[in-house]
């Protein structure tokens, strides 16, 4: 499924040191609801962090705060040492470096698959069209949907659409990729084709934050599992430790529910 291709993230070969993503004392409210509470989290280059937790615990909000699709009220988020700017051109530039893959794919419905992948490189990175198309075709081949380049999103299966969404994010050469439940909207037989692509990315050294309930993926690809409940990071550990010896009662309770269904 996952063909070897050019390495995606040259950034990972840079010196480690300053974490790539750093959240410090992050708080966010939706009205009365305190969705993110005193979140401190650092993600190193090349690290794969899986975020799990019960519904409504704030996983999506955390993910969306990292590229400021949701603004936070307190605290600080930096990407590659740079604090997230206010809404505007500078924020747009920073978002270009942060890939995002949504649960519902969100491919541009009026554009072909190829155009979906070239839009960002052409409009944001100002790449020549021919160059952007060549790179887009490489990426589409890499995620196994090269033959679909001239179709429209609605003509593809969910699994294919999500792989295109990953290619669209990769086309921007992001420093970090955010995945918010990328397989939750998929039929079971399509989940693995997407997880395989993600596992390949992780192996290639992409820095990733993945909200998912796919424990197999977490064990296979994650460096760290972060467990959230009621807006807080309750526990963080390597997958082996987390799944075999969870510390908190809430994590134990959560794991017993999802592992025994």
């Amino acid at each position, binding site marked *: 499924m996952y063909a070897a291709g050019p390495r995606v993230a040259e950034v990972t070969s840079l010196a480690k040191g300053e974490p790539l993503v750093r959240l410090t004392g992050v708080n966010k409210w939706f009205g009365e609801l305190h969705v993110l509470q005193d979140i401190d989290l650092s993600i190193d280059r090349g690290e794969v962090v899986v975020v799990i937790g019960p519904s409504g615990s704030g996983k999506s909000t955390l993910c969306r705060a990292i*590229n400021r*699709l949701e603004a936070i009220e307190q605290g600080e988020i930096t990407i590659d040492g740079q604090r997230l700017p206010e*809404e*505007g*051109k500078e924020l*747009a*530039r*920073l*978002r*270009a*470096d*942060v*890939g*995002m893959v*949504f649960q*519902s794919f*969100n*491919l*541009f*419905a*009026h554009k072909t698959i190829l155009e979906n992948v070239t*839009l*960002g490189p052409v*409009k*944001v990175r100002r790449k020549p069209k021919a160059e952007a198309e060549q790179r887009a075709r490489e990426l589409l081949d890499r995620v196994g949907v090269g033959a679909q380049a001239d179709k*429209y*999103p*609605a*003509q593809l299966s969910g699994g294919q659409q999500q792989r295109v*969404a990953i290619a*669209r*994010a990769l086309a*921007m050469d992001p420093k970090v990729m955010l995945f918010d439940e990328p397989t939750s909207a998929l039929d079971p037989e399509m989940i693995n084709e997407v997880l395989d692509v993600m596992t390949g990315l992780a192996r290639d050294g992409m820095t990733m934050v993945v909200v998912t309930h796919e424990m197999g993926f977490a064990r296979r690809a994650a460096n760290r599992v972060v467990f959230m409940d009621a807006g807080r990071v309750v526990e963080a550990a390597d997958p082996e430790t987390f799944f075999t010896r969870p510390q908190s009662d809430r994590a134990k309770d959560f794991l017993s529910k999802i592992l025994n269904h």
Partner: protein
Amino acid sequence: MQFFVDNLDLFWDAFLTTLSLSLLAGLLALVLGTLLAALRVSPITPLRALSTFYVETFRNTPLTVVFFFVIFGLPQIDFVIDFFPGSVLAVGLYTAAFVCEAVRSGINAVPAGQAEASRAIGLTFSQSLREVVLPQAFRTVVPPLGNVLIAMVKNTSIAAGFSVSELSSLLPRLVNANAGELMLVLLGVVVCYMVITLPAAFVLSRVERRVAILR
């Protein structure tokens, strides 16, 4: 039949006047209305407020009052405008408010994920509107926009009251001169309006089918 042959020049000139009034005002309304809709959904509060103020003002003012404002009000602030361009301006400004509302409803019909995905790849707000949201919004907006434009063509008849020799202005003139031909005069004028609106409706429905989108 002799009646139409005798007055062909009059009908033709009036028809052209209504047609150019419609085309120019329609262009102004589409451009300004789309711009207003973009402001209406922008993240900048004063711009949103400005657009809301504009739309509510023009939507709730009778067109005749807008004509008075443009043709007799603007000269008071030293902006004198001729009757024909004044009529284009009045109809265009007025219709823009309705175009804005139609386009805005189209924008709201585009799933929020589309704008989020475009911002997530680094498009700015205006790029995201231009490249992703508006092209999809226009697809759902073609039918209501058609209604707005047809109403606009008929609204150009107000210009008759402001010395513009467009189609409706033929009614008093021709009826006075040909008292017995009232029905013919009416028929001629109505057919002329339909020659503008029916092809427009046809073109729009073709456009609608062309841009229909798969979801």
